[in-house]
């Protein structure tokens, strides 16, 4: 009888132990992924504020710069720069506030004293990942400067996105801007198509700062990508 009980309990305990070990392993693995996601989410929130402030306060971006003192005024953005940016950066983020981890698009609206939108402009990434992992929308008030005696109320709104397309495009843009060689370990859930300075995933495309050579397509899967800059182009290998 004693022996019979032991024969029953021991296999059960073994099975329970195995289940627990599997549960803890998966939980631990899941927690690491979750931590990374949260980290990205926090980065995204911080980045949204940073990008808006850089755009509104940096004379390299939209801030109005006094011609005599060469000083920028906090949160006064120049109408000439808004028009220049909305023309020049129709499809990609301006370099003065580019984030290599995320993609963003900004919408600036001029409002009247009743709060109605009178005019609006936008610039930044034309498209975003189909399966966005994170997306945040923030805004700050700005003053739109037409001339020294005509500064009007406005709002600057940002949509900032973290996804596969933004991540891989950011890697290529970083290599292009830093003019170095870099490697990245990526896990792709969809196929990537590259044509010159255009990169697409699921028909969602972004424009890159440099043309890409050496690769036209990356199938879904896990890879270590190497990219190196040379004479205005990026050479990519798997």
């Amino acid at each position, binding site marked *: 009888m*004693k022996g019979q*009980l*032991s024969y029953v*309990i021991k296999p059960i*305990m073994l099975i*329970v*132990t195995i289940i*627990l070990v599997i549960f*803890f392993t998966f*939980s631990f693995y899941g*927690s690491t992924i979750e*931590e990374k996601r*949260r980290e990205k*989410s*926090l980065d995204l*929130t*911080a980045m*949204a*504020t940073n990008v*808006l*402030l850089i755009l*509104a306060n940096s004379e390299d971006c939209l801030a109005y710069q006094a011609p005599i003192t060469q000083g920028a*005024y*906090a*949160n*006064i953005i120049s109408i000439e720069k808004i028009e220049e940016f909305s023309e020049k950066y129709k499809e990609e983020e301006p370099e003065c506030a580019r984030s290599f981890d995320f993609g963003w698009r900004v919408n600036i609206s001029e*409002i*009247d*004293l*009743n*709060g109605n939108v009178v005019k609006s402009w936008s610039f930044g990434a034309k498209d975003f990942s189909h399966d966005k992992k994170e997306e945040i929308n*923030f*805004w*700050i*008030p*700005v*003053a739109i*400067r037409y001339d*020294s*005696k*005509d*500064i*009007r*109320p*406005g*709002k600057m709104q940002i949509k900032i996105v973290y996804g596969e397309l933004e991540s891989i495009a950011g890697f290529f843009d970083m290599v292009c801007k830093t003019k170095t060689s870099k490697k990245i370990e990526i896990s792709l859930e969809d196929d990537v198509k590259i044509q010159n300075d255009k990169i697409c995933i699921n028909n969602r495309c972004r424009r890159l700062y440099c043309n890409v050579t050496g690769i036209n397509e990356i199938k879904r899967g896990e890879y270590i990508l190497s990219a190196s800059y040379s004479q205005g182009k990026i050479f990519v290998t798997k």
Partner: protein
Amino acid sequence: MNKKGQAFETLGFIVLAVAFIIVFTLLKTASTKGYVSTTKELYEIHEGEGFRAGINAILQMTEKRTGKSMIELLGIASLLKNDTIYFGPTIGSINITEELKKRFDAIYGKNHWHFKIPFGIPPQRDIQIIVVADVSGSMCDDVYEFKKVPEIINVLRAQGKSVSMRLFLLPGQLMCCQPIGTITCASFPSTAYFDCKSLSTAKCSLKGQTDEDWGNGLACAIEEGPKNGWNNYSIKVGIPISDELPGGSETCTKSPSSAQYQSLQNGINAAKKIGMYVFPFKAVTGKECCPSCNCGYKEGCGICYSGRYLFTSTQCRCDETLEYYMSTIANETKGEMIKLKDASEIVDKIIGIVGGLNITGIPHIEAGYPIPKEKNIRAVTTAIPTPAKDFVVFYAYQWS
């Protein structure tokens, strides 16, 4: 192994497994809490930075009619201690509280903001008075009364009113009977805060064509200004004193095309241009003692000038028209017509005008909606420079 031993072994395993699960759950909860609080902190940083950026932006926005920024207008308002600033007849008045309200409402929406700018204990505003005196003979007693004014100015200053006055005499000569004699600017003592100037020596274009032309005379006196010039932020008071229409009461016309009315209009335009309050003093015309205006001189009804005792019949006939002229300029400039019953009232009336002026203005500018108690309130404090080269503090609050 006996049954008891097996039971303990099983129990031990279960306790260990439960302990593992509890520890794991606690760790996960702590991690989630940390994430939530960091996210909250980041959102608050964003909201705080956004609000600070918003205040900067709002203060730099310009007002359409003046082209001045909100921060400039606030600086001027804080110096004037008045949120309504008059920018002359073309632009008119700007209420800075209303201008800010519109911008805050447009950006943050109704019921989401509040601001306040306390002025502290401000220095009192200067009061600059110019008097334009008719020097026709019938005004002898009235103009002579101004000899007492320098002393009164000193008394008012001792009481804390930063008042100064310049008396302008219209071109002409005031030939009064004895003991007054001829009155010129030399008849008045000159002090640091009172002096007299004859408009016959003035360089302005609208000098005053006659010794009663107080409309053009006022325009000329405004152009000449007080002894030390106009102070941009002072309260400006103009006092034309006469018993005749500007340019004379030979005809009692109210026609806008008449020379008298043109003179009045010139005075109104000049006063409005610098934001001057006009308090015309209507001197005794004779109507008070002789309603028919057909009287001769008698004691208390008429005046002695140029060596003769006369009843002021010309002035008497235009009494009602003069009242119309004087009340028109007073109404147009937010002043008041003062009807003198006797020349001796002049000093008291000047004291009354100075006493009635609001020289301290409002204690603060405040607008917006009541700040809720159970909300996360974002606050921004910023300094507003004033034209007097000091600062007032702007407190702004915003909530979702």
